C-alpha cells in the first residue's frame, strides 16, 4: 500500500507534478512514431543533430524576447529546419553523405548558440536549455505540447503509408507516385517541431532520448510496425511516469531521470526482448 501510494501520491498532491506527467505522456505518444521511423529510415542520429541545431534559434529568441514560449519555439523551429535543410542541400549539391553533413553542422550550431548567449550578455541557464525541467512546465507550454501532439499524430496518420513505402522501397513509390519527397519533408518538419516543443519541457538533449530510446527498445519486442509504434509509446509513457517519481522522491533533475528510465527499459529490452534479445535464440531467417 505504501509503495502504491508513492507511485500516485505526488501526482495527486501537486499540480506541477500532474502537469509534468501529462506533458511528458503526450510528448512520449507524439515522439513514438517519429523515433520508430527515424530508425527505419537509418536516420537515428538526425534527432541528436537537430536538437543541437535548435539552440542558436532558441538563443536568438531568448535574446530578443526573454523566456517567451513563442519566441523560443519559432526561433528553435527556424534554426532546426534551417539546419536540416542546409545539411540536405549540401548533401544534394556535393554528394557528401547526409550523416557526415549533419555531423559537420551540429557542432557549428551548438557553438553558435552558446556564443549568441554570450554576446547577448544575458544569463539564460544553459543547463536549463540543454537538459530542461519537466517540473517547470507551465500551462502555456502544456497547451503548446497538446497542439503539437495532436498535429503530429494526425499528420503521421495521413503520411503513414507513403512514408512506409518511401522507407521500404523508395524506387517503387517513385514509380507510382510523387508523394515521397513531400512525406519525407513533412516527417522531418514533425521531428523538428517535436524536438522544439520537447526541449522546453525536458531539454534539447534529453528530448532526443525520449524520442529514440523507446523506439530502439521496441524493436526487441515486435516485428510489426503498428505494434512497434504502440510499444514505443508505452515505453515512453512508463519512462516519463517512473522518471518523474524518481525525480520527486530523490530530488533529481527530471529530464535526465526520465531518459535514464527509458535507458533502463532499453537495456531490459536488449536482454529480455523476444525479437533478437540476448536471452532468446536467434530466429530462423528462412521459412524452409
Amino acid at each position, binding site marked *: 500500500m505504501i509503495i502504491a501510494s508513492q507511485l500516485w501520491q505526488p501526482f495527486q498532491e501537486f499540480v506541477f507534478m500532474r502537469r509534468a506527467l501529462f506533458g511528458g505522456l503526450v510528448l512520449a505518444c507524439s515522439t513514438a512514431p517519429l523515433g520508430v521511423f527515424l530508425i*527505419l529510415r537509418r536516420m537515428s542520429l538526425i534527432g541528436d543533430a537537430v536538437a543541437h541545431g535548435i539552440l542558436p534559434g532558441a538563443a536568438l529568441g531568448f535574446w530578443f524576447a526573454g523566456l517567451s514560449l513563442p519566441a523560443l519555439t519559432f526561433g528553435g523551429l527556424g534554426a532546426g529546419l534551417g539546419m536540416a535543410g542546409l545539411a540536405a542541400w549540401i548533401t544534394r549539391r556535393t554528394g557528401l553523405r547526409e550523416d557526415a553533413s549533419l555531423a559537420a553542422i551540429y557542432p557549428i550550431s551548438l557553438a553558435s548558440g552558446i556564443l549568441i548567449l554570450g554576446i547577448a550578455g544575458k544569463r539564460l541557464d544553459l543547463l536549463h536549455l540543454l537538459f530542461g525541467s519537466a517540473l517547470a512546465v507551465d500551462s502555456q507550454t502544456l497547451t503548446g505540447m497538446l497542439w503539437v501532439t495532436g498535429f503530429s499524430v494526425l499528420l503521421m496518420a495521413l503520411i503513414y503509408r507513403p512514408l*512506409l*513505402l518511401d*522507407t*521500404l*522501397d523508395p*524506387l*517503387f*513509390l*517513385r*514509380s*507510382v*507516385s*510523387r508523394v515521397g519527397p513531400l512525406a519525407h519533408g513533412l516527417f522531418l518538419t514533425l521531428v523538428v517541431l517535436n524536438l522544439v516543443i520537447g526541449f522546453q519541457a525536458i531539454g534539447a538533449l534529453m528530448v532526443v532520448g525520449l524520442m529514440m530510446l523507446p523506439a530502439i527498445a521496441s*524493436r526487441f519486442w*515486435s*516485428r*510489426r*510496425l503498428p505494434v*512497434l509504434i504502440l510499444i514505443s509509446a508505452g515505453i515512453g509513457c512508463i519512462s516519463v511516469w517512473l522518471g518523474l517519481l524518481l525525480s520527486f522522491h530523490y530530488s533529481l533533475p527530471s529530464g535526465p531521470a526520465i531518459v535514464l528510465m527509458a535507458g533502463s527499459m532499453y537495456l531490459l529490452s536488449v536482454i529480455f526482448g523476444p525479437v533478437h534479445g540476448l536471452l532468446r535464440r536467434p*530466429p*530462423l*531467417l*528462412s*521459412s*524452409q
Partner: protein
Amino acid sequence: MIRCRNLTWGAPGQPLTQALDVALDKGSLTAVIGANGCGKSSLLKVLAGLQKPLTGKVLLDVPRRGNVAFLPQQQFLDRQFPISLQELVAAGFWGKKQTAQQRSARLEAVLQDWHLSGLQHRPLMALSGGELQRSLLARLCLADAPLLLLDEPHAALDELGQKLLWQHIQTWHTEGRTVIVVCHDLAAVRKHISQTLLIKCSGSVLAPSSQLIKPPQVA
C-alpha cells in the same frame, strides 16, 4: 510504344554507352542483356522516369503515372523492415480505387498465383530470397500496368519460381502489355523472349534473340 531518341545515361559527363535510338512496339516483349556495368538497370530506371537521362528523350504512348510498373532488384530492400508479406504485396494497390472486398479477393488470388498462400502474415525478415522475389512479383501484378519493367526478375528464384515467372511474362505478353526484362540468363532469354536489346559501350543492338544469343552447346 516506347521510343528512345538519342538517349544516353550514366553519371554526369560519363555516359555508359553511345546514344540509343530505338523503338519498341506496344505489346512487345523485349529482353535487355549486356555485360555487368553496361547500364541495363539504369536504362530501366530512365524508362520508368526514376532517373534523368544525360541526353535525349524517352517517349511513351501513355502517361507514366499509373501505367508503368517497375520491379527493382531485391537487394535494395531492408530485410529487417517490420512488415508482413501481405502488407508488402498490398502496396501494389497504390492509387487503385477498389472496395475492401475487391482488394481482399484480388490479393488472395495473386498470392495463390505466386504460391504464397499461407505465408501472408510472415514478417519480411523470415522470408527466403525466393519468397521475397515472388512477393515483389505479386505486388507488380496488382499494379495492372500496361508497361512492365523487370530488373532481374529471376534472381533468387528456384526452378518452380522461374517456371511461374516465365508463365506470367507470357501471360502479360499475350494480354497486350509491353514487357521489358533485364536478364543474365541467356538460355532463358533465347527460349522465352523473341526480341533482345544488347547494350554495349560501342553501340546497342535490337535484334531477334536467336540472332544475338547462340544456342546452348550440347555436351
